């Protein structure tokens, strides 16, 4: 582009910044409606039990109570992103401790909570399945007896408690083992991680005089909310309008349903608006977590460092309901070869039901788990071969035009530049020459790389030119704080060459917005951005048609000019403001100018000539972003505590539409990955969560995070991306655990294969190692 950009590439402040810094932004808990009731939930005390009987009479008799609903009040309707296995509230059975069993609407929250305690439920306990091993045992109790009959959106391979089995094969794995000179095999384990958006989940529903429902909720997709509520309540989708307030963070936890179906039910039963906001404990107990994973990785190499073959076996603990689990499994397996040329690959695994809180989407979607294993093992291989870990990676790196596991060709690939950037910025090659670390500290450096997609499913955009020439953009994409409203507005403004202030962006509304699958899969900038650009071009075309009619020239002779004008190329005086064009369209000829576009991501993931895939729930996943991360850590010899001192991350995002927002995504992802690597773990004490509070579940605070957190943006344009852009939302989290594990090994000589790598685990590994610190050093 010869002209200066008006919006794209500029670090403009987020559109809603002033609203947020003044406290005026309205989140779900801040909303209120006249005559509003408050809802509360009774949770299951058992992990697995049959519900025999309810007695709600005492609760109903409590003054101020308007309604009590139980499973008996809900029909046989089930929801689920991949397998329709979940009812809005427990029906017939409970399947995890904390599952909603009954709900109350009352005049105030305290009364609703008191009423819940007056509900008597009689249970018959069933054997609880609390691990993948127990679930797959031959005589295991079955958690979903009707699994075979559940509707599935893909040909799932399900059996017993195994919700989904997936396998992907490429090349000839047996030949691979024969050609390998060294074979490395390790098992890695990662725990459940809580999303911990600072805003707890909640919803507010209201019926109108015709019985139609409007639903506000903490969400990542008004359309997924609509689908889930309507599936689980048996409502036609047209009878439910879903809108969104501001969202206080969403990392996957607000993508699928939480309490929305129950709140809608209470509003329909009472005929009054009903609001329910979960407490932090309830949010921990009944929403979702990152899948606990066991990952076996076996890699064969030549002595010169050439990677020959990779096998990955993955067991995911899906918890009580399917949610996004089959997708997470399939995606994790697709990522398990990493961005490397490995000719022979077989990856396979199960996601399994257990009597625990459901696992679901969480930033990275299975990739952080497998990448922790794969990128840690690569470090071990480098060490065994006496190679620099960066050199081993560079030797085997996928090049632009190479094919991802499964066969998709990947042209936009800036990974080599990402690695070069962090190598340079971190002074990797001079790291051994640094001054000695403080006394009683050991220093280490680690590297890991990552790739991640942006894409998936349907999206759309509508761009309307108003009578005065100003523009309204409507996409249905929920901005969960990451800044997508701003980025999409920048894309629209750039395409129409108008100042960003001249574009207003509508809030997502299932009544008026085009479909948008959701704010997930790092997809909004890339997929919705494409739709915004195409819809803006549609408006441009119509503006030019109007102007051509007025000027009696060809549309090919016309150009958009900065500031909202259209003119004849080379004739400065011949131009019209958008106002004139739009007014004419509204009042005289052509009709109002509305540009629109919808699309679905449709490049196939699997090329049947290159690979075989069984039970894979996605046919078309997306385009690839790349990242490299180097970190420097110091480990305390006395405590085993790891302090992350510095981090350098480079991410190939195609094109940074708003560089400051891209940095925000990189920094936030790194820190969430740091929590996953070092401290975070949802712990079950038997069937019950042991740490469902912020007192007991730690996330990184300012003191746990280095100020030296350097983000480097690399731009290898994605040809079909808007202005070359691809996604950035998840990728920066992915390499963090392995980079830290590799740095810990560099510092202390111990390999940790289980997250979190907390002080106790590091110290135990270290003490067990010859040449590590001695017990006596702990005496003081």
């Amino acid at each position: 582009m010869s002209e200066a950009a008006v919006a794209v590439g500029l670090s403009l402040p987020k559109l809603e910044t002033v609203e947020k810094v003044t406290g005026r932004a309205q989140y779900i808990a801040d909303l209120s409606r006249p005559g509003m009731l408050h809802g509360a939930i009774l949770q299951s005390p058992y992990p697995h039990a049959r519900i025999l009987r309810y007695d709600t009479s005492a609760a109903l008799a409590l003054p101020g109570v308007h309604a009590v609903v139980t499973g008996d009040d809900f029909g046989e309707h089930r929801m689920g992103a991949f397998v329709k296995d979940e009812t809005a509230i427990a029906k017939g059975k409970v399947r995890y401790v904390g599952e909603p069993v009954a709900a109350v609407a009352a005049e105030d929250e305290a009364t609703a909570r008191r009423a819940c305690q007056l509900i008597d439920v009689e249970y018959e306990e069933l054997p609880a399945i609390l691990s993948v091993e127990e679930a797959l045992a031959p005589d295991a109790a079955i958690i979903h007896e009707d699994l075979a009959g559940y509707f599935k959106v893909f040909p799932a391979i399900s059996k017993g408690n195994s919700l989904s089995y997936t396998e992907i094969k490429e090349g000839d794995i047996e030949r691979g083992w024969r050609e390998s000179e060294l074979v490395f095999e390790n098992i890695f384990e990662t725990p459940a991680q809580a999303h911990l958006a600072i805003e707890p989940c909640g919803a507010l529903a209201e019926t109108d005089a015709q019985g139609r429902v409007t639903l506000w909720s903490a969400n990542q997709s008004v359309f997924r909310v609509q689908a889930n509520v309507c599936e689980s309540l048996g409502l036609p989708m047209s009878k439910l309008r879903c809108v969104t307030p501001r969202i206080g963070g969403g990392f996957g936890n607000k993508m699928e349903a939480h309490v929305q179906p129950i709140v809608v039910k209470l509003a329909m039963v009472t005929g009054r608006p009903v609001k329910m906001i979960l407490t932090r404990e309830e949010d921990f107990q009944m929403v979702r977590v990152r899948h606990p994973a066991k990952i076996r990785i076996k890699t064969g190499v030549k002595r010169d460092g050439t990677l020959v073959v990779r096998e990955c076996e993955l067991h995911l603990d899906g918890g009580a309901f399917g949610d996004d689990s089959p997708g997470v499994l399939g995606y994790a397996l697709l990522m398990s070869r990493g961005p490397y040329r490995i000719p022979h690959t077989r990856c396979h695994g199960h996601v399994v039901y257990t009597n625990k809180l459901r696992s679901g989407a969480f930033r990275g979607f299975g990739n952080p788990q497998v990448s922790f294993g794969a990128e840690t093992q690569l470090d071990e291989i480098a060490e065994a071969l006496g190679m620099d870990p960066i050199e081993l990676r560079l030797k085997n790196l996928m090049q632009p035009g190479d094919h991802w596991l499964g066969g998709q060709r990947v042209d936009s690939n800036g990974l080599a530049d990402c690695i070069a950037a962090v190598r340079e910025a971190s002074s990797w090659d001079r790291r051994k020459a640094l001054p000695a670390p403080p006394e009683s500290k050991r220093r280490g450096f680690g590297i890991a790389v990552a790739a991640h997609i942006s894409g998936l499913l349907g999206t759309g955009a509508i761009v309307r030119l108003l009578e005065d020439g100003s523009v309204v953009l409507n996409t249905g994409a929920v901005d969960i704080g990451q800044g997508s409203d701003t980025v999409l507005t920048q894309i629209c403004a750039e395409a129409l060459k108008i100042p960003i202030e001249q574009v207003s962006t509508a809030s997502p509304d299932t009544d008026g917005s085009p479909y948008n699958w959701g704010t997930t899969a790092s997809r909004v900038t890339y997929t919705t951005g494409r739709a915004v650009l195409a819809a803006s071009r549609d408006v441009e075309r119509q503006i030019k048609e109007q102007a051509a009619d007025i000027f009696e020239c060809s549309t090919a002779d016309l150009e958009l000019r900065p500031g909202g004008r259209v003119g004849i190329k080379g004739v400065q005086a011949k131009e019209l403001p958008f106002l004139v064009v739009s007014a004419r369209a509204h009042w005289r000829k052509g009709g109002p100018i509305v540009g629109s576009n919808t699309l679905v991501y449709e490049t196939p993931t699997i090329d049947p000539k290159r690979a075989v895939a069984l039970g894979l729930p996605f046919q078309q996943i997306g385009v690839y972003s790349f990242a490299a991360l180097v970190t420097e850590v110091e480990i305390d010899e006395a405590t085993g505590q790891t302090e992350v001192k510095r981090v350098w991350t480079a991410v190939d995002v195609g094109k940074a539409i708003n560089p400051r927002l891209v940095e925000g995504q990189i920094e936030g992802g790194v820190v969430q990955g740091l929590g996953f690597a070092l401290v975070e773990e949802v712990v079950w004490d038997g069937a019950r969560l042991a740490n469902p509070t912020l007192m007991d579940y730690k996330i990184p605070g300012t003191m746990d995070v280095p100020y030296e957190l350097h983000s480097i943006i690399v731009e290898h344009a994605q040809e079909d991306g808007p202005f070359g852009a691809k996604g950035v939302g998840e990728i920066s989290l992915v390499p963090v655990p392995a980079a830290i594990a590799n740095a810990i090994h560099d510092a202390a000589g111990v390999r940790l294969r289980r997250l979190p790598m907390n002080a106790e685990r590091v110290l135990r590994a270290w003490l067990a190692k010859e040449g590590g610190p001695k017990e006596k050093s702990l005496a003081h």
Partner: protein
Amino acid sequence: MSDIAVTLKINGRDRALHVPAGETLLETLRDRLGLTGAKRGCNQGVCGACTVLIEGQPVRGCLSLSANCDGSAVTTIEGLAKGQALAPIQKAFAEAGAVQCGFCSSGMMLAATALIVEHPRATVDEIRAGLAGNLCRCSGYRKIVDAVLSVIAGEAR
């Protein structure tokens, strides 16, 4: 249990209220007065999203009983700007890109306001220590620290 009469000077204005003895300042602000800028993130005093200033000191709204605050000056996020003119910390948060979802921002900016009064030349490490009681899950904190640094640099000039 009878309600207790209290007078709170909220954002410069006296508010005479009758509150139950167990009502927290966060409940009073949000539910009674409609000042929803203070957020309930954990209701346990850990996350800091409910941070407000009492006599200039940052406190947890969820752990403070309104009945104990009688006669105190309370500053909430709604009281930081002067009309349409943002306070320096608000401007700095906006310009540094320190706000993502915004749910922690009110508490974070109030904690930062108190920090800057106490340590007008705070270093990076002093800022990190001063904000250690406020959790953010979106940002990674770097841009928050940068925002506070920019206020300090502006005021030091």
